């Protein structure tokens, strides 16, 4: 067995037969001249028509199965294919230098790809892959090769130096379980597609594809960043057991409750961003929505959502959860989000800018509309309100006053308005330092570990070069979590944890020991998390 390392960009585990995808024919130039440039030009234009058809087909297929955003990759490729600059580059090489259509496409494409390769930004450099993908497509058509790969009749994992989006689509099959690339980029179109297809993917793997033998077996743990070539039978069977544990939640009854050694019930909650994510399975499989990100309703639109529209949405959430709690986080948006309706000024540093509660308090009319809608919907279920980005007790008090004012106003309008628990989100270092005071004013606390890590470690969580330093279980963070849970216990209010740390079962036992008992995570992590609880915690009410 050979163990290798890499960087997981789509998490998950998989095993199967290794399929090595050889790098495409290197684009070296042979002096292949033609005596009939007109004919070659005609060949090129015909091949381009065919390539366009293929791309349209790929676009249609991926719109149906993956969605518009992913399909746009092929639309953009089609536009590059038909681009005048590309055509000029190729046709002038044919007509002026008498190159064959194939050679002209290679040379012209390489010239254009070089345009992107010279750029500073890695996202931009990865665009050259799109051009090379087009060149390969044209080349295959011109040389009459219609290389359609034949996937093996069993589960398989692809190993390649790099893959283009169209290569991936060609290999697509329910049996394709994983991708290992010796190069690759986290920002490539391939990365987007692999994530959309939920195929575990490892990049920068320390293996040379041309040295690997096909027909061997491979086990891939993209979450941990490891792969195992030619593992023994025993290793493979243990690994496969682990996979089936990861993806089957079947044996765990959905209504099973778990308890910490102290006898507290461990709550498993879901983070969601739109009511579409709320399905009956999720409703049964969690004890509530620990975080509803209300900003989605403001994004990508020019008109502000009305009170009625928001009311309808919150009502749907409240009724959909059938009495289980739903924590609605008030608008948490800043200049980094696409929300034309808010007309936000562009900022140098949006993570430290006018966002979250700061923005809401500056625009009372905007905030009032949202609060009125939530207050009105609260009668349909168990809604709670969570205030993001707090840095002072005063901000929370301002929200509290505004909320009381609105509740009174609504009651005067003759509506039945139940009390609405108001929570403080702990996600800035300032809010940690003030957690005792905040706990004294709030009805509950919720720790957002993603932002708290970013602000505490002073690391932009979107900077890939700092990804290894961005550690949510950093000792500084753990000390903060301990302070916050102590403050919540002293004030006798609940405190949940959401963000990356909540779903990471490597740290769950430690967090439970610290006193945490409510974990909120993306629905996709709930089965694995419950599996962990199932294996390690008591499942019946302990006798105290």
């Amino acid at each position: 067995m050979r163990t290798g390392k890499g960087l997981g960009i789509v998490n998950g585990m998989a095993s199967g037969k290794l399929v090595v995808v050889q790098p495409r024919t290197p684009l070296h130039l042979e002096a292949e001249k033609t005596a009939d440039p007109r004919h070659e030009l005609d060949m090129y234009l015909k091949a381009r028509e065919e390539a366009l058809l293929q791309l349209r087909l790929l676009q249609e297929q991926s719109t149906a199965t993956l969605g518009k955003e992913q399909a746009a990759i092929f639309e953009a490729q089609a536009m590059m294919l038909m681009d005048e600059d590309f055509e000029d580059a190729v046709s002038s090489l044919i007509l002026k230098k008498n190159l064959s259509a194939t050679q002209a496409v290679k040379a012209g494409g390489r010239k254009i790809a070089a345009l992107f390769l010279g750029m500073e930004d890695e996202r931009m450099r990865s665009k050259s892959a799109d051009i090379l993908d087009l060149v390969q497509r044209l080349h295959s058509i011109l040389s009459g090769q219609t290389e359609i790969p034949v996937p093996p009749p069993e589960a398989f994992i692809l190993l390649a130096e790099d893959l283009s989006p169209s290569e991936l689509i060609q290999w697509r099959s329910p049996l394709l379980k994983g991708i290992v690339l010796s190069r690759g980029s986290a920002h490539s179109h391939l990365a987007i597609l692999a994530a959309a297809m939920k195929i575990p993917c490892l990049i920068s793997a320390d293996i040379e594809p041309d040295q690997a033998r096909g027909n061997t077996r491979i086990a891939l743990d993209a979450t941990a960043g490891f792969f195992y070539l030619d593992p023994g039978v025993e290793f493979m069977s243990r690994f496969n057991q682990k996979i089936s544990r990861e993806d089957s939640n079947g044996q765990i009854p959905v209504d099973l409750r778990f308890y910490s050694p102290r006898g507290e019930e461990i709550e498993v909650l879901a983070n969601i961003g739109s009511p579409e994510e709320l399905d009956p399975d999720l409703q049964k499989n969690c004890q509530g929505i620990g975080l509803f990100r209300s900003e989605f309703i403001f994004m990508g639109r020019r008109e502000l959502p009305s009170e009625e529209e928001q009311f309808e949405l919150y009502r749907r959430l409240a009724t959909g959860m059938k009495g289980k709690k739903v924590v609605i986080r008030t608008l948490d948006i800043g200049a980094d989000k696409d929300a034309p309706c808010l007309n936000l000024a562009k900022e140098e540093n949006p993570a430290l800018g006018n966002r979250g509660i700061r923005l809401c308090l500056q625009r009372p009319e905007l905030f009032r509309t949202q609060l009125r809608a939530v207050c009105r919907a609260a009668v349909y279920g168990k809604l709670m309100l969570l205030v993001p980005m707090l840095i002072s007790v005063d901000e929370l008090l301002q929200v509290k006053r505004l909320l009381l004012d609105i509740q009174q106003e609504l009651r005067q309008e003759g509506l039945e308005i139940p009390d609405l628990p108001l929570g403080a989100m702990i996600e800035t270092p300032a809010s940690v330092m003030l957690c005792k005071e905040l706990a004294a004013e709030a009805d509950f606390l919720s720790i957002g570990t993603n932002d708290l890590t970013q602000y505490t470690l002073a690391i932009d969580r979107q900077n890939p070069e700092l990804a290894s330093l961005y550690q949510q279980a950093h000792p500084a963070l753990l000390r903060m979590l301990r302070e916050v849970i102590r403050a919540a216990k002293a004030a006798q209010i609940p405190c949940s944890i959401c963000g990356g740390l909540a779903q990471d079962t490597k740290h769950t036992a430690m967090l439970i020991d610290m006193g945490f008992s409510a974990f909120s995570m993306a629905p996709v992590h709930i089965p694995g998390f419950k599996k962990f609880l199932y294996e390690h915690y008591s499942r019946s009410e302990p006798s105290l």
Partner: protein
Amino acid sequence: MTSFTHTIADPLGIHARPAALLVKTASAFRSSIILRHGDKEISAKKMIALMSLGLKQGDKLEIRIEGEDEEQAGQAMKKILEEQL
């Protein structure tokens, strides 16, 4: 001639979907539509040239439109830039 400026707001800069939309929109008009960023000027009807500007969040873009349907073209370009980029 009509002209205006736009600052790229999309954190990903110019990527596949908005770029395709922009080129499609620009190509629907007869007027010449020129995008200027720094010292580079390109036609908004050309995908590769647009990509080669390497536009990132915060980059300033000057849009210059000239031709018989410049008014409608200006409105359409403004809309697409504001909503998508």
